[in-house]
């Protein structure tokens, strides 16, 4: 009898070329996604006069630096223009397919990969971006890497890795109405901390995970890195196969059926052992917002802001006080009393079509009390949203309907939250200065951002959903 294996074990062993005595393995890379930020790696190749080993397994997008407001072609900032041109030049030189500014398929790399059927179950995927964990939602082993590793993958189509610990996060029960995948992700991070899964590959399992749509699963796996995990993965199922069928780069016809037969084996065997396991009750999760400067600083919307005076240790009290000082929030008050200055709906975490629909369902026929930007996850998502009339709902609510890119999540294209301003955001990091120097970020789901827009302060979305189909 063979030993029962976890999904993580199966994915790992399918890609292992060599295992050294010291425990490090050389792994085959099925897909390598690159973007403007990969210029350091292309520079390393140029320094060695090296070629790209597998240009047809390498796909590039322009996402981090592209303007999401104003002209896309006449980029006002010359430095940003140079970054976009650089990825065009590097990919042309090495024969790599680019979904660039002129391509209707352009978008955020972690939205484009699944959308194009490039991301498939059973693949090993890397990208020089920490949110590469997103792709695990389809049953891929996907993780972010640094520039030196990007250069190594470009040159060899392989990567050295030590096998991480295997961790299973079970979410039991059923998520209540108004509770989104983002709430589940924040609930997990609040429970285990931003280093709670460091050194681990995480498999998400349980009925509440299984009940998520593919887009919800993408959000959940996206946030794995915010718990410190190397990657997050969900076993593929019929929902996965239905999502992939007919996508441009996915297998078609008889090849698709054969692929599904192989993908169906990608599940954790009964009695397989994990190194760590935790379990949460999905029915207990409420809509969540962050109050501090780390994604672990997350609480249900009806809670109160922590009070350093009531914290157990001096160390913890100091950290809470520092976070509240930066955020400009008084201790002990109701989260729902915190006024916001702007909203942002976008990013690889929460800018797929279902995210835009969820926000629009709240905003339809209502006005936002604050300005805000909506940036679709890809140009194709933008197009679909416009076909569904969602752009009109956002515009009529008073929000700006922008182009697709990483935008105000990281601000390197110049779309920033002003110093001292408070932004309700569908993004993934509420770090100090993440959305711009001095910017204050509260993370939450798209529907919760819409609720904050309608009220002008952090708010529970659930009453706003009464009588509406979200």
């Amino acid at each position, binding site marked *: 009898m063979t030993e029962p294996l976890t999904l993580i074990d199966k994915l790992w062993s399918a890609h292992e*070329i*060599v295992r050294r005595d010291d*425990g490090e393995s*050389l792994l*085959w890379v099925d*897909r390598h996604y690159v973007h403007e*930020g990969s210029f*350091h790696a292309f520079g390393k190749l140029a320094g*060695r006069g*090296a070629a790209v080993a*597998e*240009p*047809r*397994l390498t796909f590039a997008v322009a996402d981090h630096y592209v303007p999401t407001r104003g002209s896309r072609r006449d980029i006002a900032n010359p*430095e*940003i223009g140079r*970054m976009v041109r650089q990825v065009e030049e590097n990919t042309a030189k090495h024969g790599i397919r680019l979904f660039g500014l002129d391509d209707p398929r352009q978008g955020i790399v972690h939205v484009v990969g699944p959308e194009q059927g*490039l991301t*498939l179950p*059973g*693949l090993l995927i890397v990208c020089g*971006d*920490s949110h590469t964990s997103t792709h695990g939602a389809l049953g891929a082993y996907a993780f*972010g*890497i*640094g*520039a*030196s*590793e990007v250069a*190594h993958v470009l*040159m*060899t189509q*392989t990567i*050295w890795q*030590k096998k991480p610990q295997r961790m299973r996060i079970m979410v039991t029960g059923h998520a209540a109405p108004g509770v989104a995948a983002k709430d589940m992700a924040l609930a997990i991070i609040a429970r285990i901390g*931003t*280093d709670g899964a*460091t*050194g681990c590959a995480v498999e998400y399992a349980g009925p509440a995970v299984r009940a998520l749509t593919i887009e919800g699963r993408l959000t959940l796996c996206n946030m794995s*890195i915010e718990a*410190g995990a190397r990657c997050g993965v969900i076993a593929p199922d019929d929902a996965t196969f239905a999502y992939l069928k007919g996508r441009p*780069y*996915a297998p*078609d016809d008889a*090849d698709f059926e*054969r*692929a599904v037969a*192989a993908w169906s084996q990608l599940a954790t065997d009964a009695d397989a052992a994990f190194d760590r396991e935790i379990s949460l009750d999905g029915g207990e999760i409420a809509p969540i917002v962050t109050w501090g400067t*780390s994604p672990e600083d997350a609480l249900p919307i009806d809670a109160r802001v922590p009070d350093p005076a009531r914290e157990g240790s001096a*160390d913890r009290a100091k*950290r809470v006080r*520092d976070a509240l000082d930066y955020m400009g929030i008084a201790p002990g008050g109701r989260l729902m009393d915190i006024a916001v200055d702007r909203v942002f709906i976008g990013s690889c975490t929460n800018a797929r079509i279902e995210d835009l629909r969820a926000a629009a369902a709240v905003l339809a026929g209502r006005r936002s009390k604050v300005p805000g930007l909506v940036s679709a996850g890809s140009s194709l998502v933008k197009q679909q949203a416009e076909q569904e009339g969602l752009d009109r709902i956002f515009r009529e609510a008073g929000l700006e309907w922008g182009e697709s890119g990483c935008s105000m999540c990281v*601000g*390197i294209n110049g779309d920033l939250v002003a110093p001292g301003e408070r932004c309700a955001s569908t993004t993934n*990091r509420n*770090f*100090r*200065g*993440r959305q711009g*120097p001095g910017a204050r970020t509260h993370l939450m789901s798209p529907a919760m951002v819409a609720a904050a827009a309608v009220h002008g302060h952090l708010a529970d979305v659930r009453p706003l959903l009464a009588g509406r189909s979200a």
Partner: protein
Amino acid sequence: MEKFTRLSGAACPIDQANVNTDQILPARFLKWTRQMGIGKVLFHDLRFDAEGRERADFPLNRPAWRDAKIVVAARNFGCGSSRESAVYALYDYGIRCAIAPSFGDIFSGNAVQNGLLTAAVTDAEAAEIMDTIERTPDVPVTIDLEAQTIVCGNKIFRFTIDPVRRKRLLNGWDDVALTESFRDRVAAFKAADRAQRPWAVPRGEVP
């Protein structure tokens, strides 16, 4: 890559948990190449105020720690974004070692690629080292990678690091050259894998 064996120098305490790579190198400097002097903007928004003046309260701005070769922090140092430029900024500033109870996975991978040691100690040890250097800022700290020890004042601490990463730092390995030595194994894997997993190739592409 430069080999790492022993290091002695000033150690700067940064008594914060979750010092993420956005703090180490804010995103607007990601456009910079190393030639532009990326070390100058290390910890930029913590080191400088909005007008570009040094913040006197940030430890790296204090005379004793201005030329630090080591930083000491609380848990989860280097979490967040995968930006390797965060390591370039530390290294080019002159930092060769970070001591903390834990590190972001991608950060510590990037660090080893560039000859920067990530030395893990317990929460209590990190706090004790920070406390010692706060009280005696000039105390030299010596790190021995072979022995896995940190000497701080009259105390010796043991640190942990993944054995593979340790070996890599001690030898100053070049990964690409190492991988090239497995060229035949890679080719054999690829051929067998194409037969085993034909669906793994993007449709319409023949690599």
